[in-house]
């Protein structure tokens, strides 16, 4: 006889919609609650990001909410104990805020640059950036410098939008998709949804990746490239496309600078810049009118190829001619790059031609009428359905900026951007190339006490004058972003902050605030040494720590909190208000501009506060102008009040939905006091769906650009001409050559780097670290990726996720391992120029032969993350980070230089070379090991039973 199945008692339950925060995808979630406990988290079917699905992390959010690593109260390092000992005393929020306010007031009224404020995986950079700007410190950035600034900068200096959040493949129409170096830990749900859509429709999926797991598992073709060679591969594909004359002539003429004329006066000031008219407009050669014409105009018929003599007698050449000369060179022939890339020449040629076939023989035409920015009507939209996507495998190399530019070069040649089946922009992108936002670099403003910066600390330099340096060329930022060392460091260099601040290079900090960033463990390069730096004292300064005061804001007991002088405990994402703003890292999709909120679903059960509330509080106490009324009283009651009422410019605020006094306006409108309620009513997100005529070709789409200008996405309605050839890069190169009419570097190292790496056309060079280490001695490339079910979520403390993986292994190619006499589960030593680690091996087929890799951030320090001391994450798990240096290997006669992309400052943590050997018998367990973190006050509330039986329902069982 069948047992009776008991169904849920829905009357006892409540359903609320909010936004996930287990990673950076920010999917919509539908949360079922019962008695203040989470019963079920599922995807929100109506949400543009995830359309109902949800990944493993999202569902495991329950176990994050009930994590025993949650901080419970503000803590102060116990007087008399040393930093890193992890001995703390509870203090009240009032005390904590007083201590911090006093300290910050002092800094702000003397030397605001003495405050560093760096944030990790936060999703509110619009607020943190505003806060730093109002404080008056240039020393602010988020974690983009070690995440993906190479991709962002390459895109924003080439096509006006970029991989990651500023664009997405058009899964509805793409027929051919190449994924470049996308680890399986990236853009969780959207890529999975898309890949299935693509394959279901019969599209081909090619993956370029040294490792075949995750997304790459389901690729139709796997190109196991050697790490760091992607740019070379892309340029070889460009070679093939040019050689077979497979490029979109019309697209190049209309929407790119391929026809712009470049001055050819080597060795002279002005060489390599565009030929411009008296209005500073770039010129082309019009073959109809046989005259030089404005390259921004609509009524032109430009020559794509050719050399001409300018009216002033200088020789000029089209960008396209320069490209043909460079990339048709036999250097880039598939057979000549095959060995370096580790791929058959045949594959390179074939894939380039397959793309060309799809682009030009399987074109999509949608009957959508649209008007271009020059006012001409089109009766259809033409799509060349080749889509691409790229991520960390491109970004985390010191040649990644150019590699990514090379990929955009393929897209431009194929005319495969922002049309059906392409990589398409997500609002507020595309933007002018580069976006019209310069980093604050006025030294007087930066040094002025109690004065906000006039511009945000981060931006997009276009020439040496935009650098953030003093009159002697010294960096004004603690991370040396926008200095001659890394001129286009648009996301800052968070990975250099602790090193530079410890070395007082370029100067000393007083207080460092780190929010949600595990810089003492898995989010830093060179972990063991960084921990030592945090402990380091300054003998000249009365034994103060080199970084005198360290404030850490986190929700969990991470390895980083252990070094804090002051710990401010944050809430979980289910306990607070949040907004995912179009001013920030948007959740827009190609077909809609979107933003979202979170609001508290669960009552707080401990003495913690959302960091955004604390920031608003501090801003009010410190009387930041934007947070203070003219009469000196605070302007915003709290964070929700701030979000609703703050306007960046009239009508433009953090949230784009239900604006206007009556809540009827979208994208722009007066503040609406009921805005939060409207969002909550509407499942916590807002999507502005683009009408068909505004969906495509937005870089030159009149109707779209008008809306975009009105909403503040772009300054004004003007064509966004894509840049094969980047003039800003050439200006920096000229400065390196001593041919620039403006600031020039006085250091030989900087000059060489500018000359070598600031090529205005995409180039490839051997990754910097690899130029300096002995490749015979260190024969392997070493990489990491996060497993899909832990991406961005740091969640080895999550009791469900850690059952899937509680230890990481070093993976290597099975044949290679066999040759070396290494078997599964052997313990091995892995050594780089920076140090060595011991770890356990697993062999596999799907790893390029010269590459080894592991799962990142599985290894934990003993006692961290609410785990017991014997957790296998700590005893057997390991970090590769110890092997990676934040500085390049020393070179005689040269100052120590950051191990980063020389253009953007992107941390080059994929450039690592290592050697490995089998450990002696009896050598087991991971190494190095660290002291056990001590339990924090408040930890006694957690039981950590040997058997956990989570059940959200108050149902009577049996």
């Amino acid at each position, binding site marked *: 006889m069948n047992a009776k199945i008991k169904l849920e008692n829905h009357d006892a339950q409540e359903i609320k919609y909010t936004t996930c925060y287990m990673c950076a995808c920010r999917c919509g979630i539908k949360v079922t609650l019962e008695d203040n406990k989470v019963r079920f988290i599922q995807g929100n079917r109506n949400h543009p990001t995830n359309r109902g699905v949800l990944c493993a992390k999202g569902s495991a959010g329950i176990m994050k909410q009930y994590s025993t690593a949650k901080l419970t109260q503000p803590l102060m390092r116990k007087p008399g104990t040393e930093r890193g000992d992890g001995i703390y005393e509870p203090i009240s929020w009032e005390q904590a805020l007083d201590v911090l306010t006093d300290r910050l007031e002092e800094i702000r009224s003397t030397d605001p640059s003495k405050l560093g404020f760096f944030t990790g995986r936060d999703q509110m950079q619009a607020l943190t950036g505003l806060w730093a700007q109002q404080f008056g410190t240039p020393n602010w950035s988020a974690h983009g410098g070690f995440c993906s600034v190479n991709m962002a900068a390459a895109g924003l200096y080439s096509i006006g939008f970029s991989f990651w959040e500023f664009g997405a493949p058009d899964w509805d129409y793409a027929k051919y998709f190449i994924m470049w170096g996308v680890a399986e830990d990236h853009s969780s749900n959207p890529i999975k949804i898309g890949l299935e859509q693509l394959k279901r429709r019969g599209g081909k999926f090619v993956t370029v990746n040294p490792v075949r*797991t995750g997304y790459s598992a389901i690729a139709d073709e796997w190109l196991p490239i050697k790490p760091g060679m992607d740019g070379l591969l892309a340029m070889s594909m460009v070679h093939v496309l040019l050689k077979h004359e497979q490029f979109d002539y019309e697209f190049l003429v209309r929407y790119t600078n391929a026809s712009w004329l470049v001055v050819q006066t080597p060795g002279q000031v002005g060489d390599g810049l565009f030929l411009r008219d008296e209005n500073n407009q770039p010129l082309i050669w019009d073959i109809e009118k046989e005259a030089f014409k404005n390259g921004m105009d609509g009524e032109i018929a430009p020559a794509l190829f050719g050399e001409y003599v300018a009216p002033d007698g200088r020789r000029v050449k089209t960008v396209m001619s320069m490209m043909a000369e460079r990339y048709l060179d036999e250097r880039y022939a598939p057979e000549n790059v095959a060995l370096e890339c580790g791929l058959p020449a045949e594959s390179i040629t074939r894939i380039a031609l397959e793309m060309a076939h799809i682009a030009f023989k399987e074109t999509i035409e949608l009957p959508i009428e649209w008007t271009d920015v020059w006012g001409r009507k089109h009766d259809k939209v033409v799509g060349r359905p080749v889509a691409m996507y790229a991520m960390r495998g491109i970004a985390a190399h010191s040649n990644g900026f150019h590699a990514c530019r090379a990929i955009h070069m393929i897209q431009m040649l194929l005319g495969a951007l922002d049309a059906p089946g392409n990589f398409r922009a997500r609002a507020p992108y595309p933007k002018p190339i580069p976006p019209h936002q310069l980093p604050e670099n006025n030294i007087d403003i930066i040094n002025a006490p109690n004065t906000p910066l006039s511009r945000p600390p981060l931006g997009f330099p276009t020439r040496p004058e935009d650098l953030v340096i003093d009159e002697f060329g010294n960096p004004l930022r603690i991370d040396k972003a926008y200095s001659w060392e890394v001129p286009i460091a648009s996301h800052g260099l968070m990975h250099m902050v602790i090193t530079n601040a410890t070395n007082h290079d370029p100067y000393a900090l007083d207080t460092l605030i780190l929010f949600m960033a595990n810089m003492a463990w898995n989010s830093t390069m060179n972990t063991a040494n960084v921990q030592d730096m945090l402990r380091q004292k300054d003998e000249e300064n009365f034994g103060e720590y080199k970084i005198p005061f360290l404030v850490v804001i986190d929700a969990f007991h991470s390895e980083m909190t252990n070094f804090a002088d002051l710990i401010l405990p944050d809430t979980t994402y289910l306990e607070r208000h949040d907004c995912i703003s179009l001013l920030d890292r948007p959740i827009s999709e190609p077909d809609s501009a979107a933003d979202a909120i979170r609001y508290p679903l669960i009552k707080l059960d401990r003495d913690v506060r959302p960091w955004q509330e604390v920031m608003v509080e501090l801003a009010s106490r410190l009387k930041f102008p934007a947070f203070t009324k003219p009469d000196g009283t605070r302007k915003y009651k709290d964070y929700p009040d701030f979000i609703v009422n703050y306007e960046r410019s009239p009508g433009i605020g953090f949230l784009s939905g239900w604006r206007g006094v009556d809540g009827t306006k979208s994208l722009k409108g007066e503040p609406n006091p009921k805005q939060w309620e409207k969002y909550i009513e509407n499942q916590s997100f807002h999507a502005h769906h683009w009408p068909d005529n505004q969906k495509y070709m937005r870089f030159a789409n009149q109707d779209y650009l008008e809306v975009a200008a009105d909403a503040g996405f772009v300054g004004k309605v003007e064509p966004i001409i894509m840049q094969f050839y980047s003039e800003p890069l050439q200006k920096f190169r000229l400065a390196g050559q001593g041919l620039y009419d403006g600031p020039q570097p006085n250091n030989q190292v900087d000059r060489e780097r500018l000359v070598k790496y600031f090529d205005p056309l995409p180039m490839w060079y051997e990754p910097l670290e690899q130029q300096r280490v002995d490749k015979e001695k260190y024969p392997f490339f070493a990489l990491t990726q996060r497993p899909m079910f832990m991406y961005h979520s740091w969640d080895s403390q999550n009791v469900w996720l850690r*059952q899937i993986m509680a230890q990481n292994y070093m993976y290597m190619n099975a044949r290679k391992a066999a040759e070396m006499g290494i078997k599964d589960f052997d313990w091995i030593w892995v050594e780089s120029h920076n140090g060595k680690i011991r770890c356990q091996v697993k062999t596999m087929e799907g790893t390029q032969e010269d590459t080894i890799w592991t799962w990142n951030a599985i290894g934990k320090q003993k006692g961290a993350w609410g785990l017991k001391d014997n957790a296998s994450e700590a005893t057997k798990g390991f970090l590769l980070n110890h092997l990676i240096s934040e500085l390049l290997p020393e070179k005689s006669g040269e100052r120590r230089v950051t191990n980063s992309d020389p253009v953007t400052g992107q941390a080059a943590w994929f450039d690592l070379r290592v050697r490995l050997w089998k450990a002696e018998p009896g050598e087991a367990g991971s190494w190095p090991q660290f002291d056990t973190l001590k339990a924090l006050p408040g930890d006694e509330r957690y039981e950590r039973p040997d058997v956990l039986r989570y059940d959200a329902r108050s149902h009577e069982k049996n």
Partner: protein
Amino acid sequence: MHPAFSVIFFTVASGAGFGLFSLLFIADVFKLGGGFEREQLIIGGLMAMALVVFGLLSSTFHLANPKNAWRAFSRFRTSWLSREGVFAVLFMPLALVYLASIWFDAPLWLRETSGFLTAVLAWITVFSTGMIYACLKTIRQWNTPLVPANYLALGYASGSLLLLLGAVVSGLDTTPYIAMSALILSIAAVLKAIYYFWISSPGLGPTINTATGLTRAKVKLLDTGHTHGTFLTQEFGFQIARQKAGLLKIVVFVLGFALPGLMLVWVFNQQGGQVAAIVAVITGIVGAAVERWLFFAEARHVVNLYHGAQRC
């Protein structure tokens, strides 16, 4: 398969008990070696029942939720485990009737009928025990008629050695008992040898290819999806090294068959008498226990294919 002590003890003890009881009945009917006295029969029968009861009790130790053990009789129609339980429980009253009929000098028809039925039930119960394993298509090493045959042969071999000890202690003519033991031990040894031969070649069973349906190329496990053990690895993951298994097989034959056989010769030659019989019982039962341990240890459940085994 994980060799659980409770199950090993259960099958060895209850097998010996059932074997002893059945053979006791035969010895009683045919008055072998002069026949046991009434008290001796009762003691022997109770000892056999005790072995069965201890075995059954021990088997409940491996139940995670023994309060529902009583339900185990409900699926007699399909489950060999249920059948075994039912037969084992039916055996008890019948065995008591038989012993009572001996004790109270009941009419011969009652004594012989109840004894015969008890013996048959004992046989069926041991057969059912064997079938618990033999019916599983998931374990190649078990899915063979040799398994119930082995269970029966070993149960009766252990029983016969116990009976021989009884005969020696009781001062009966041991020749028929030696003959019986020798015969059963020989059969058991031969069956065991055939079994070991049989399971040594994998045959055409499931492979990692059929388990995954990926039949066109070599398939290897990359990751099980859990770092540490699960119920499945704990229950089915046990694996014994081939060399160790070979060694244990020698132990099975030496302890389980050769030494008891040798002891039979000693008993026959009147050398040592009781001691030799005791040694025979002990070695025989230890041998059976080793055999039983190996029976589990060598069994490879097909779920191991999903954990990377190429075949089971």
